[in-house]
């Protein structure tokens, strides 16, 4: 096994545990590179099937390319898509800075969807290397009834024995990509030939490294227009992946507060 095989095998194991142990399960599909890898891994785990709904929490402000991508691959991958809209920004916590408030719409949208479909497990494609707050996550991470994350008192998790028993009124976040890095994701996309939105490829000296809402996501300087060039770029870069995501850096603790409230 090479190291991509090992990453894949671990993710497949996690997805199969989630599917076996959680009765009402859904996967978040943000249409970004990570969640495409996640859908792909589900097809690996379940031999061509994705046996639970994939959910796009729609802010209505994604790039047109992303909506086109969603419609095409929902069909091609035979996905059971849930695409509910988020509540307006007025319903978010007014004490958050502007970009974080915009991002917080997704948290509310997710919360509504969980209540509506009675999900008790949500698979999300976060990675430890994305952001230092995410580095603290567990693979199976319990959430309170409000979707909140108590990072001060997380249950132990070791030897791949995951906590799957939950008290009433709570749900689990499952993180099958937690152990991957951005570079791993691109190498795997290259090896497996997984389709991604072409906003990731450089045009006119700019490309998106991370995709969010149009108004709070900006491209980075880059000439990488193929997967191989992106891999080469990432092998030497020291800029952080989410540097184009405004909400992470408005204040020191903005992202931490978003996550504690239930953000992905």
């Amino acid at each position, binding site marked *: *096994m*090479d*190291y*991509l*095989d*090992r990453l*894949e*095998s*671990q993710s*497949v*194991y996690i997805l*199969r*545990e989630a*599917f*076996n142990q959680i009765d009402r399960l859904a996967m978040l599909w943000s249409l970004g590179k990570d969640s495409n890898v996640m859908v*792909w891994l589900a*097809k*690996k*785990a*379940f*031999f*061509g*099937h994705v*046996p639970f709904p994939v959910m796009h929490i729609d802010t209505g402000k994604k790039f047109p390319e992303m909506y086109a991508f969603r419609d095409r691959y929902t069909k091609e991958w035979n996905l059971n898509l849930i695409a509910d809209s988020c509540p307006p920004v007025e319903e978010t916590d007014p004490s958050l800075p502007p970009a974080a408030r915009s991002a917080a719409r997704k948290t509310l949208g997710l919360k509504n969807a969980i209540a509506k479909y009675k999900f008790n497990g949500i698979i999300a494609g976060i990675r*430890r*290397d994305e952001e*230092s*707050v995410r*580095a*603290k996550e*567990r693979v199976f991470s319990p959430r309170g009834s409000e979707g909140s994350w108590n*990072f*001060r008192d*997380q*249950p*132990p*998790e*070791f*030897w791949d*024995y995951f*906590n799957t*028993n*939950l*008290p009433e009124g709570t749900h689990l976040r499952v993180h099958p990509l937690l152990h991957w*890095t951005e570079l791993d994701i691109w*190498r795997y996309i*290259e090896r*497996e030939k997984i389709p991604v939105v072409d906003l990731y490829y450089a045009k006119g000296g700019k490309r998106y490294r991370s995709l969010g809402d149009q108004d709070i996501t900006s491209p980075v300087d880059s000439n990488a227009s193929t997967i*191989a060039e992106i*891999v*080469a770029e990432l*092998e030497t*870069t*020291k*800029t*952080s992946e989410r540097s184009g995501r405004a909400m992470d850096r408005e204040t*020191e*603790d903005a992202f*931490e507060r978003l996550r504690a409230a239930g953000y992905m």
Partner: protein
Amino acid sequence: MTLETYLRDLLRIVIVGHVDHGKSTLVGRLFHDTGSLPEGKLEAIQAMCERRGMPFEWAFLMDAFQSERDQGITIDTSQIWFKTAKRDYTIIDAPGHREFIKNMVTGAANADAAVMLIDASQGVQQQSRTHAYLLHLLGVRQIVVLVNKMDLVDLSATRFAEIEATYRSYLGEIGLAPAAIIPIVARDGDNIVTPSARMSWYEGPTLVSALDDLASKADLTSLPLRFPIQDVYKFDDRRILAGRIQTGRLKVGDRLLFSPSNKTARVASVETWSAPAKTRGEAGESIGITLDEQLFLERGDIASHEDHAPIETNVFKGRLFWLSHTPLRVGHGYRLRLQSREVPVTIQQISALYDVEQLSSAPSDEVPYNGIAEVVLRSQAMLALDSIDDNPATGRFVLTDGTNLVAGGTISMQGYPNQRALVTRRSSNLTEVEHKVTAEARQQRNGHRGGVLWFTGLSGAGKSTVAMAVERELFRRGLQVYVLDGDNIRYGLSANLGFAPEDRAENIRRVGEVAALFADAGMIVITAFISPYRSDRQRARSAAHDAFHEIYIKADLAACESRDPKGLYQRARKGEIPEFTGISAPYEPPEEPNLVVDTQHLTIDACVAAVIDYVEKNFRS
């Protein structure tokens, strides 16, 4: 992308140590000196420190949380990455606070190696010992020890040598040999990447060269096959058994044995999606297979090859760490998770609660929060498992209580038999034939029921003495009675068996079956065997059904040892008799015996009378 990047090795290291010994500083410095800091990170920390009016702190690199910065401690396990010329590293930070041992366990259990920090000015403390002990229990065998803050002890070679000697000897006692013990000043970078000019008396490796010298992952493919079934899928016309191979390999055509259901079938195919076709699988791979026969299998079964099958038992010893604020207690029930299997278990005994400071242990009724103990666990169901010495993957388990994961541990079968042979029926095509003489007819002729008086107790408790006296008296009263005695049976029926746990269990199985036949024939049969294991007595009870009467011939170890009629205890104490019950092998007393005969406090006549009385009440028509 170069081939080299694909082949680069990744080593996961956990950094453990006392809360104030400088872990976060070390990591900050390590990142900086290996050129692994993201752009802008150093400046961001500098700016933040200035805003707060405090001196520059490397530690803030790791402390991502607001709350951590405010409290000045690391709360949880986090992971970050750095690289050297040789390979990539993931650092799993594990907090040193006693409160947060569950987080240390969470981090360390996934590590290939550990870096242990000790403060030179404070020396080896309780936490340094606890951490080393836990690392050993978690299976981490490669350790690099750093003696930090050497500047606080004037960079003294003598002080370093003292700490080195103390810790090396402690590690030696628990079976760990450190790869290196290195004097450092994390804040200033001494012996992190570059050798310290200020401590030229030290001639060993720097931290980074010591890490680069550590071995990579253990090879699990050469061990016997262990393939736990995680799930069974029927999305289409295929019936796929899915799971991750823990150890060993399999290929199409192999005959697999599934435990504990004890069914076999051949591998028909290895299934894949969007990948090259496969005919084999090896340790670490999450795979799916189909079989040539439709067996009823479910999550929890574990596949092996027929030779080198896992042990089957319903009792084992676990050495565990306890992570719950509610103490572990004898007699309490928990959920046992063994790979994909999950069953209820009861704590039968806490044979040793460890004091990691003194390296001593004593029996106990409970294990406190963060305690380490050896316990005996018992399940109703048969389990398939391995001892940790035979298999690092299937030799460990966790316990859950309600919704919480409360313990992790390793398995030992020392003193307990593999019950696989006892529960495996090798003959097939059997048809039971019905007798034409009924049990009632036999009972009418004899004037009493048939049945088994199963005596159990330590060697020297008086089983044979009481049995023979009871036999004589019942015979005198006209009852059909016979004694099956331990030594007598071993001259004949069990002459081919020794005293290993498996042989002892087989001996008792035979006696149980023979006793059941006697009882069926209308006789009262008295068996006089130590029969130390509950599982064995349970099996004998199943053979005789309602006719089984368990009689505890009770005398404690001291009393039996002082009697020592055959001189066996004396020989066992000298080590001449291995696995001797009560000395070097366990005795599990009955939980609810039908009768207790206390030979320690009653006369022989009173003991005999008690049994006779019991028979008169329960066996007469």
